[in-house]
């Protein structure tokens, strides 16, 4: 018993040191990013429409995201928010409108799709780790086979990333041996290993036990602070209020309201937003 608690104590200290280290890096990175023209639109979505058969799931959505911005997408289930985020890296097709990511237009051209997928990392609700590979292999696979890095370099970067998400000691285990929170942190590391400019999160904490939500949100928070452009679909209001630069409310495939957190929570303009907030808060 005593042994156990002293161990967690030590762990906590290590964790804190690590966080401080990350924070320092983050501050340095952020100032650099701010210096480099903050107003670059890195994602430009205009007049996006998508149908499933007769069902109109995304209606005339416009969204422009500048570099380093954190957008949190809210909305009731079935509102099209997940579908929207999945169209951004071509996991879903769309019928009209345009998506331009980092200057590349998303078309049927496979080359463009590949380029855009290199630029965007994606984290799923169900983690979707590869169960037959070790954690390290999960993270280093894509860099080796898509970025064509040498195995040594890819492994080194993978270990660094696992360190960054706080689970370096799990590198040689298999996904099935990890808790949900740990698996989701691996999934984040896996997406980061491709060195994307944009990270997409599709309800990253919805499948987690409540006590594991924070460890994942912490990683996302530090990622946001490091200047990563992020679009996050989530129901975590605390995270939204604290981390987001802008909030977007989806309903029935449309963007109902888009505002900064303070304005969004304190003075929502639309009745639908008020209703949504009253239901969720």
């Amino acid at each position, binding site marked *: 018993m005593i042994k156990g608690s002293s161990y967690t104590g030590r762990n906590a200290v290590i964790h804190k040191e690590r966080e401080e280290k990350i924070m320092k890096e983050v501050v340095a990175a952020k100032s650099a990013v701010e210096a480099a023209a903050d107003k670059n639109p890195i994602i430009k979505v205009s007049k996006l429409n998508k149908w499933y058969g007769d069902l109109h799931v995304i209606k005339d959505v416009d969204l422009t995201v500048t570099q380093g911005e954190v957008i949190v997408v809210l909305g009731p289930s079935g509102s099209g928010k997940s579908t929207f985020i999945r169209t951004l*890296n*071509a*996991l879903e097709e769309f019928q009209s409108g345009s998506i331009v990511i980092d200057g590349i237009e998303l078309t049927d051209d496979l080359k463009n799709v*590949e380029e855009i*997928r*290199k630029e*965007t*990392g*994606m984290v*799923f609700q*169900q983690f*979707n*780790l*590869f*169960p*037959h590979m070790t954690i390290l292999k999960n993270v280093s*696979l*894509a860099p080796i*086979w*898509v970025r064509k890095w040498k195995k040594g370099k890819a492994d080194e970067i993978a270990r660094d990333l696992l360190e960054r998400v706080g689970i370096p000691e799990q590198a040689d*285990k*298999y*996904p*099935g*041996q990890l808790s949900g929170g740990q698996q989701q942190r691996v*999934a984040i590391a*896996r*997406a980061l290993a*491709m060195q994307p400019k944009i990270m997409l999160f599709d309800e990253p904490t919805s499948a987690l036990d409540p006590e594991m939500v924070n460890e994942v949100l912490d990683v996302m928070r530090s990622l946001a602070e490091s200047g990563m452009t992020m679009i996050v679909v989530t129901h975590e209001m605390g995270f939204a209020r604290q981390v987001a630069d802008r909030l977007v409310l989806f309903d029935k495939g449309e963007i109902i309201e888009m505002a900064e957190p303070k304005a969004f929570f304190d003075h929502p303009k639309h009745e639908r937003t008020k209703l949504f907030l009253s239901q969720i808060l």
Partner: protein
Amino acid sequence: MIDERLHIKGEMDSRLEVTDAPRLKQDGQTPFFKALKKNLFDGPKNTLLTLLTALFSGLVLYQVVQFAVTNSWDVVYIHLRLLMIGQYPLEELWRLWFALYYASLMIGGTWGLFKGAGKAVALTFGSVFLAFAIIPWTTLNTTLNLVACLLLMAGGYLLGSRFSVLKIPALVLWALYFPLTLGLIMGFGGLLDPVLSRYWGGWLLTVILASVAIIGCFPLGILLALGRRSELPVVRYFCIAYIELVRGTPLIMVLFIGQLLIPLFLGGQTGMDNVTRAMIAYVFFAAAYLAEDVRGGLQSIPGGQYEAAQALGLNKIKTTFFIILPQALKAVIPAMVGLFITILKDTSLVAIIGLSDFLGTARRISNNPEYLGRYLELYVFVAVFYFIFCYLMAYVSRYLERSLSKGSR
């Protein structure tokens, strides 16, 4: 004070021991007897059942032992060479021995290097070699060769367990094993004296047919399974048509087609002997079934795996080979090995097209008027031999399944 307490405690402990001992004695039952009582003599009905079963098993066992002991088995051991290798020319026997040496060394080495199921394989082969070396009816030459095999196996084990750097050479040697030994048995297309396939027979022919069928159907079956899920309609419909056509046809008919139609289509002078044609028939037949097994595995992979791979930028081919196929194949190991065992047993159907495989040879011997009515010994021998190797395959499959599912829940 403390001392006194300790003393009292000690006394109590010893008292406990003293009182414990007779209680255990009263019970007077070892765990073995307890288990016996609980499982076999639990109430009058079960006792009756147990006794009846014991009586029946005893009777059967008595009959079997009597059969095994009172029979002379000469029909088996006189024809042992015929049963094992058919008409393979005596002066070229060294090729088969070489193949066995090679296999023994590799099996021993694999056991030493990789542990696991290699042990079962090595012990099974070792026991079979030993049995054949010990029985008095084999020639001295055979005995010496088998002893050499056993020594090579032991040597391989020692080498493997000492030098783990040999892992990759061992895998390369395994990959080379089949083409090399098959080439040697055939004579490397004229490099050595060719031994025509009509001289192959018995267990040798059975093993060659089964190996070719299993090794050949594996890539073909996977391609068909992938093709059946292809987005290209031409590929998909071709694969569906092929798989359903073959699955809707009896194996014997496929064998006949192989024998009669291949020469017809390819213009008579194909230069293909009937063993080769049987091999082709087996490969194409087994591939259709394997494709269906693999398709089951492919369907069991959740869509999230594809999405995750795509999101990481892996293209379709890389996704298939790194993410989907390894998981799909792992999921269908039991079904695949079941198919492989079926193939091994189904090779006995080649007797119908005039080849003398293991079972076919036994049947031909039993037709010899000199041994009229002595078929039972032959068939028992054949059955035991088939069973040993089929069971070994099933065992290795179970082991693979368990060891591959480690870590992933």
